[in-house]
């Protein structure tokens, strides 16, 4: 079965995120008040053959651990694991 997987990778909380800070300052200078805790990460989408959704989820998790995220500086989350249309 084919699945669509969406992976979200964000800088680990507690690790300085200079990109997030720069975006936060830019939002403030545009007049967007009350914005804080901006963090900039990346999103990865992929298609994956797997027997079940649980298997697809497990495979994606292993991809994150081995390559897609750096465990020292980044956290990852599986935002969506859905059968591909």
């Amino acid at each position, binding site marked *: 079965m084919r699945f669509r997987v969406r992976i979200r990778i964000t800088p680990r909380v507690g690790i300085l995120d*200079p990109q997030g800070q*720069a975006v936060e300052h830019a939002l403030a200078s545009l007049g967007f008040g009350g914005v804080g805790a901006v963090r900039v990460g990346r999103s990865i989408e992929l298609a994956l053959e797997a027997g079940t959704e649980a298997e697809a989820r497990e495979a994606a998790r292993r991809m994150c651990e081995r*390559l897609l995220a*750096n465990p*020292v500086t980044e956290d990852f989350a599986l935002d969506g694991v859905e059968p591909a249309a």
Partner: protein
Amino acid sequence: MKVAVVRFPGSNCDADAWHAARDAGHDATYVWHRSTDLEGADVVVLPGGFSYGDYLRAGAIARFSPVMQAVAAHAGAGRPVLGICNGFQILCEAGLLPGALARNAGLSFVCRWVTIRVEATDTPFTASYRAGDRIRAPVAHGEGRFVADEATLDRLERERRVVFRYVGDNPNGALRDIAGITNEGRNVVGLMPHPERAMHALLGSADGAAVFALTAGT
């Protein structure tokens, strides 16, 4: 000694490293990243550059190049490995050195001369320095901020594995001003500044030359 300079697609300081090794009197060769052996090298250098375009994260993809298994075996056998800039990033991604090199604190790519202090002289690449020696060398990186969790940083300090520290000007916000570290076995060293670009007074500094001295017994 025979020094192998590994070339990845996107390496761009490979020729400088090769010349630095030759200038120090060694037999230097290039090894392509697809190679699965190091052709009998005594010392391996992972040079600076932008392997695989820094896609995903600097060094993240290069660490899976076929040659990296041979590099890991070489390191595991206690033989010398030096990672400069992108080479340092690759060594961290490969788990041969702890921590990671994150985006510079100031967000900008830094390209300037810095001063680092030699903190440990019991590595193959610092044996020709005295503790406390200062080295003037260039940095040129966008992701050079050394980070690790507090426990790892404390352990590095306790085991005297911080090899180089920025003095005065920390160009990237590296935690505890760390510019270079070594592994437990003290045979693998990574640093962000470029000693191979500080080989001749005519070019601004010759302070980096001793990194490549590789005196016998190391």
